[in-house]
């Protein structure tokens, strides 16, 4: 019978003093982290991002938290500390790693969450879907959900976006806790997987986004496929057709209750269309992964990949056909294109930014190396579950299929991360679950995970100089959007710009970076932007902000002085007037 968390930790109501001390240490570390993060002054000025601005007590809090977790994980001969204590410590880690920015500022990081709020707002206004607007309106599931939740709850959209990383990672962890329960019976390893997943999650895909929602549902489908829909492997009779046929027919369901299998299948058949309607990439990842798992003989409903594939094709042929007419699926395919977009183009910028990029790569490589070692160790102990290796490696198949705006490698590493963490955990906890780690091993684990936490915070918040906005910048963007008449252009110097959250469809939004093909020199870019703005019947409002300048300089697209020269050149042209200014931003009106 399939069930999760058979003996993850003790559920006795009497807490041991050690458990209490661990819980208190977690609370203390959280208080330390919140206080330390709240003292960070904005804007962040270091090329290394937030890591250089966080004071010493923050790191002390992270160290204490790791120590508390591993003392609790070590527990005693009966197993780790009680489940409420372990859950509390994981919850504190989620707040520490994914809520840090919210303790520093009340403005969500990055541009995209603002854009997503704008799409939900536009949907609410239109009350229907127009697929001609852009790609988002061809995969509107998540935005429909967001529009309904924001309308019914009365929640402040910006506050929701601010805390979305904490909410999303919490949802992911519930799903990962369930699916790892089907892959290992060792309660210590299960808790460690959650810990490692958080520590390896520098990818920053947990903001208010369709991919974060899609990833949660993807994990739930995997929980179904690994649990109630799993098949027990049959004896392999060789690769001859007759042998393969016999092997396929001899599979038996892991879950003996027919009703439970049917219910799990119905749940899966509900989730697949919702995933398909919500995000472009996730259904492809899901299709590839469940196809590989099914072909390995470990999934009972053998037609599940066909159903997922059919749903995907139908969605592409009908609701998403408008977008696909101008954007063929394999437009940016190929290993070389993918490598250039995902690796070469990203290794640019100032020395500090390059170091951050290298540390992100280093953290990923380190976890993959640990996972590979873990797979070898498990194989030598004859207890390697092939499904974990398949789940970790299969997302890589999609790497050459699409450049995906240079983000495919990031997405692949996120989809593999739960299973990479599971394999890596068998290196860090080599025992069989009944063995209590030694005090020395716990010390080594604390230091290792503290190092991983430093790397994750560095990688995750490495762009803080330009993706953590000041209140002045938010005010400037709001002023530009208010001043710009409907139909006119709003032009920012570069991405990220925290715009479009209120007036997604009212203006034409462009960046000088895009208009000038990344050459922001005044001689080249000035006339292009000026003519573009003048020829718009409604005119334009140009936004120059501290963060956008930092963005182009940090990523090596421009030298520091060029941005100022461009602004000066534009500000001296006919019909250009300063409409708004504050410490971090200027807005110019360009008359048509």
């Amino acid at each position: 019978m399939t069930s999760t968390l058979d003996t993850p930790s003790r559920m006795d109501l009497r807490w041991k003093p050690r458990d209490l001390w661990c819980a208190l240490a977690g609370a203390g570390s959280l208080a330390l982290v919140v206080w330390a993060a709240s003292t960070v002054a904005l804007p962040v000025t270091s090329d290394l991002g937030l890591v250089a601005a966080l004071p010493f007590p923050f790191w002390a809090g992270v160290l204490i938290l790791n120590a508390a977790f591993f003392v609790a994980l070590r527990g005693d001969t009966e197993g780790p500390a009680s489940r409420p204590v372990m859950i509390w410590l994981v919850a504190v880690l989620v707040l520490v790693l994914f809520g840090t920015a919210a303790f520093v500022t009340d403005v969500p990081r990055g541009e995209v969450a603002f854009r997503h709020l704008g799409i939900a707002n536009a949907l609410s206004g239109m009350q229907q879907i127009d697929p001609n607007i852009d790609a988002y309106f061809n995969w509107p599931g998540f935005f429909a959900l967001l529009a309904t939740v924001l309308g019914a709850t009365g929640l402040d959209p910006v506050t929701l976006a601010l805390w979305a990383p904490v909410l999303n990672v919490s949802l992911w962890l519930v799903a990962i806790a369930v699916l790892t329960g089907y892959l290992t019976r060792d309660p210590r390893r299960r808790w460690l997987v959650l810990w490692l997943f958080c520590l390896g999650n520098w990818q920053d895909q947990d903001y208010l986004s369709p991919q974060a929602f899609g990833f949660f549902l993807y994990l739930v489908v995997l929980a179904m496929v690994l649990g109630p829909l799993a098949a027990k492997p049959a004896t392999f009779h060789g690769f001859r057709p007759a042998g393969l046929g016999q092997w396929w027919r001899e599979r038996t369901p892991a879950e003996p209750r027919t009703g439970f299998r049917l219910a799990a299948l119905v749940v899966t058949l509900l989730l697949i269309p919702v995933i398909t309607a919500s995000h472009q990439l996730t259904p492809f990842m899901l299709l590839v992964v469940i196809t590989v798992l099914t072909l390995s003989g470990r999934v009972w409903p053998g037609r599940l990949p066909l159903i997922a594939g059919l749903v995907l094709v139908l969605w592409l042929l009908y609701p998403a056909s408008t977008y696909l007419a101008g954007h063929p699926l394999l437009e940016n395919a190929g290993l070389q294109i993918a490598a250039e977009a995902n690796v070469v183009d990203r290794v640019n910028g100032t020395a500090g930014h390059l170091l951050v990029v290298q540390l992100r790569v280093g953290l990923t490589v380190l976890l993959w190396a640990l996972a590979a070692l873990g797979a070898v160790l498990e194989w030598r102990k004859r207890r390697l579950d092939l499904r974990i290796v398949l789940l970790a490696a299969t997302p890589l198949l999609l790497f050459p299929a699409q450049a995906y705006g240079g983000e495919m490698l990031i997405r692949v590493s996120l989809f593999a991360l739960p299973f990479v963490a599971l394999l890596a955990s068998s290196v860090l906890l080599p025992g069989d679950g009944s063995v209590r780690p030694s005090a020395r091993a716990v010390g080594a684990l604390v230091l290792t995970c503290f190092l991983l936490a430093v790397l994750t915070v560095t990688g995750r918040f490495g762009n803080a100089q330009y993706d953590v906005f000041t209140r002045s910048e938010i005010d400037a963007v709001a002023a530009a959007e208010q001043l710009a008449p409907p139909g006119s252009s709003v032009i920012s110097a570069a991405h990220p710009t925290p715009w479009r959250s209120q007036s997604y469809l009212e203006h034409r939004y462009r960046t000088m970076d895009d208009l000038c093909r990344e050459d922001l020199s005044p001689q080249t870019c000035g006339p292009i932007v000026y003519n573009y703005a003048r020829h718009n019947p409604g005119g334009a409002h140009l936004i120059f902000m501290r963060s956008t300048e930092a963005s182009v300089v940090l990523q090596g697209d421009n030298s520091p002085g060029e941005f100022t020269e461009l602004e000066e050149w534009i500000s001296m042209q006919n019909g250009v007037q300063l409409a708004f200014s504050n410490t971090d931003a200027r807005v110019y009106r360009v008359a048509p």
Partner: protein
Amino acid sequence: MSAMTLAKRPTIILGLAAVVLALLTLVGLPTPLQTVAAVAVLILLPGRALAQLTPVTDLALGTLLVLALGLATLTAVSTAMFYLAVWSWQACVISMGVITILACIARARQEAAS
């Protein structure tokens, strides 16, 4: 005896909570209460009502199904309403309330049969 009289108390409470909270959400409550009521009626109650139709006994899997089914059903309902050009958040609240009640009736029939 009818299925409703044989239904267990948690199922009846779940159905009644869906009706009451849906009405309160539609009428409007002060902000923090409105948020709690809306999240319950849109996600948690339908998720719970649908999850209890499955024979899940495991706490972790049950919790996961409540969240996943609640969110996925609301997404499906909202998206369908947008495509049919009949969307409003009030219509979504009513639809999710109806789904919760129907799931509770189905559960009550299961309980009566068992």
